[in-house]
């Protein structure tokens, strides 16, 4: 029933040899053309060759070794080629056989914390770098077409995200919260790399919502709000949805009294102009590094008996939010872990922070830690179950505000005490937890994929790739991959064969069904 209001996608301007326009017209099957697989951010695949009945027969097709740091990217798959990344690295790998086609490497200064992947437009790839450059590569051979500076790396900017292509816009975000620099999102021309628009997370003094920052100080100019992660897009409404990061100085809130818009917010922008249409702020006046950059997941489903166009986010602060994505109207706020920092929810659906849970010189014990109740690891929404899935981390830490003069940068830090994690299924209508699947001590790092084969793929904290029943959370199949999954599973079909691609540490794995089962599945 939830299928009735499926999102219809409109194409980017395609080219004959690269990413075809039609690839984004329909739910992805033979391609995975964007970071989240499609514009909705649901990470739900309509493929069902691998399914609940034959999952026990899933077997390894190939392994690709990168010999670098952990893979945190989701590969694209276009015309039988996988494109994926690590900081400074892009690989093109044969999706059928796991052989390398080309490898691009560009050593750089800057933060190498992780990398999420590339975007594609026609024959061209777009790759962000630790020194805040955007590199356009020829997808055929990995040669460089052009390199544009997004921001000055000497000021502390870098970029880890996979850009999002909408028509002739390459939408790119930036990172960097160790210095007090303004966050922004910008749109570049896919051919020339010229800036089409730039939207700053902080309004200029005097503009609407600048009153959420102190007057007579430079706080608003140094307010942070990084655009770390790939957003989502609704072609019908022509709205781009993006999450923004924490304000700066990170832990020192007293120098920036107010809500500090548009940090820690979900914003809806016009992708052609960068104009703000609406916003919602999951963490007003954040002082815990709780970026609201987790995927804004789009789906159409009944709410209070009426069909609605919804947006849901499981946010780093431990709360799950559901909004009407046409106008930002708040519908649901509910915690998805037993957070300790909020005293309630205000009339606008925002958690109310307890004053003594803000960082302090003698330490404040808080759940979740700054690493968050969830983080970059992708959530998923399965229209077959109507459930939203998240890697939920119960993390405790003690937050110290160490700065005594004018606070700058982080101005302190939290020390991690304890963490354990679970995959949780949330009823989007109420925010209630429907099932909980423990994945062990420590902070979960795996993303989630659901499929029409009635399967949920993710990983536990012990290196096991898991296939769960999305309705119940029961384990259907597993294999120990020998390392942590720090990325998100993805899937596609080539030559009538469905592939599941996952990573563990610096290895990429492909799984398929045996030949005889593929033929059975086709009947």
């Amino acid at each position, binding site marked *: 029933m939830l299928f009735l209001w499926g999102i219809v996608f409109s194409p980017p301007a395609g080219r004959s040899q690269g990413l075809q326009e039609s690839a984004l017209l329909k739910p992805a099957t033979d391609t995975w053309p964007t970071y989240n697989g499609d514009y909705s951010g649901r990470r739900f695949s309509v493929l069902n060759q691998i399914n609940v009945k034959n999952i026990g027969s899933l077997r390894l097709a190939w392994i690709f070794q990168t010999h670098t740091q952990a893979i945190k990217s989701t590969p694209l798959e276009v015309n039988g080629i996988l494109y994926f990344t690590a900081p400074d690295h892009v690989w093109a790998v044969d999706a059928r056989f796991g052989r390398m086609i080309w490898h691009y490497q560009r050593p750089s200064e800057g933060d190498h914390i992780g990398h999420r992947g590339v975007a594609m437009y026609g024959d061209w790839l777009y790759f962000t770098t630790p020194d805040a450059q955007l590199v356009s590569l020829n997808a055929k051979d990995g040669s460089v077409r052009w390199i544009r500076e997004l921001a000055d790396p000497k000021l502390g900017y870098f970029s880890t995200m996979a850009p999002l292509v909408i028509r002739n816009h390459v939408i790119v975000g930036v990172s960097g919260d160790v210095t007090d620099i303004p966050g922004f999102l910008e749109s570049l021309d896919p051919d020339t790399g010229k800036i089409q628009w730039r939207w700053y997370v902080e309004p200029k003094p005097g503009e609407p919502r600048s009153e959420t920052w102190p007057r007579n100080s430079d706080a608003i100019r140094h307010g942070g709000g990084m655009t770390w992660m790939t957003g989502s897009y609704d072609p019908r409404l022509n709205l781009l949805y993006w999450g923004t990061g924490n304000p700066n100085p990170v832990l020192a809130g007293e120098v920036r009294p107010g809500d500090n818009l548009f940090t820690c917010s979900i914003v809806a922008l016009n992708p052609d102009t960068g104009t703000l249409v609406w916003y919602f702020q999951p963490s007003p006046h954040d002082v815990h590094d709780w970026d609201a950059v987790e995927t804004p997941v789009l789906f159409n489903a009944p709410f209070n008996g009426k069909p609605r166009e919804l947006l849901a986010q499981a946010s780093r602060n431990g709360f799950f939010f559901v909004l009407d994505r046409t106008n930002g109207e708040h519908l649901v706020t509910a915690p998805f872990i037993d957070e300790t920092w909020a005293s309630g929810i205000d009339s606008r659906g925002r958690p109310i922070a307890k004053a003594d849970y803000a960082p302090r010189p003698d330490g404040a014990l808080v759940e979740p830690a700054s690493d968050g109740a969830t983080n970059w690891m992708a959530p998923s929404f399965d229209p077959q179950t109507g459930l939203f899935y998240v890697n939920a981390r119960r993390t405790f830490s003690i937050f110290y505000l*160490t700065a005594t003069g004018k606070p700058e940068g*982080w101005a302190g830090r939290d020390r991690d005490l304890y963490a354990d994690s679970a995959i949780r299924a949330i009823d989007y209508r109420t925010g209630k937890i429907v099932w909980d699947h423990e994945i062990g001590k420590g902070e979960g790092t795996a993303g989630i994929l659901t499929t029409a084969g009635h399967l949920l793929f993710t990983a536990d904290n012990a290196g096991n790739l898991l296939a769960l029943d999305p309705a119940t959370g029961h384990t259907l199949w*597993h294999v120990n991959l020998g390392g942590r999954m720090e990325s998100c599973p993805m899937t596609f079909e080539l030559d009538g064969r469905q592939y599941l691609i996952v990573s563990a540490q610096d290895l990429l794995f492909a799984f398929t069904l045996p030949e005889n089962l593929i033929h059975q599945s086709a009947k």
Partner: protein
Amino acid sequence: MYLKTTHKFLILCATAIITFTAAIFTDYNSFAQSTSGQAAAIERGQKQFEANCGFCHGNDATGARGPDLIRSKLVADDVGGNLIGAVIRNGRPQKGMPAFTMTQEQIDDIAAFLHARIHGAMRSGRVSDTYPLSRLLTGDAPQGKAYFNGAGGCSACHSTTGDLAHIASKYAPIDLEARMLYPRGAATSTVTVVLPSGEKVEGKLVHLDEFSVALQDASGWYRSFSRNQVKVQVHDPLAAHRALLSKLSQADVHNLFAYLETLK
């Protein structure tokens, strides 16, 4: 050699702590200790800066009437005074900054000071191991003692004359606070595995996930089992700490810490 270096490091730490604001508790020390010449240059530069520049830019360079130089593109792009020098010598009359007559050495020192300040701000996201006790000690020790022996249930496992005797002398204050809350790695879980035959195998827990359990038995050998063939009982000595994390108020944390700090 090692002792000498440590000694020098301590002196530099002390200098840094006395001289600078606590934002520099972070990593200024490691920057300053790279060479003693550099440390001296930074110290000279700070004096120069306070005397000539602090009036407008703030003594800590974070800005006052004049701009914040810690978050300045020009200073970020500067290498060894190559950009800062011209601004100091020529001033910025259109913005109200006068020119200063300074020697190259004085400019070099000011540049060294500013770069050290930026280095510290860039690494402000850390809590130093030497974070001072005075900033942590805000609680009430008698109330902490009451919590320890009462609501907290700490005395069920711990004794202030036994395992916790002199605990405050064993750990730096910042580490003691964290260990008090959750002493990671301080105690190993044990496990009892019941085989289908009814035989019990016990030992230190080595691994546990949804599918397998592994232990080290009393003889030191590693043994593992498939969880669908055995029953597993884990005994986690830190379970009470985990449970307390959800219950402790901020006052409880600081009172308990104040009490533990009395156990010198």
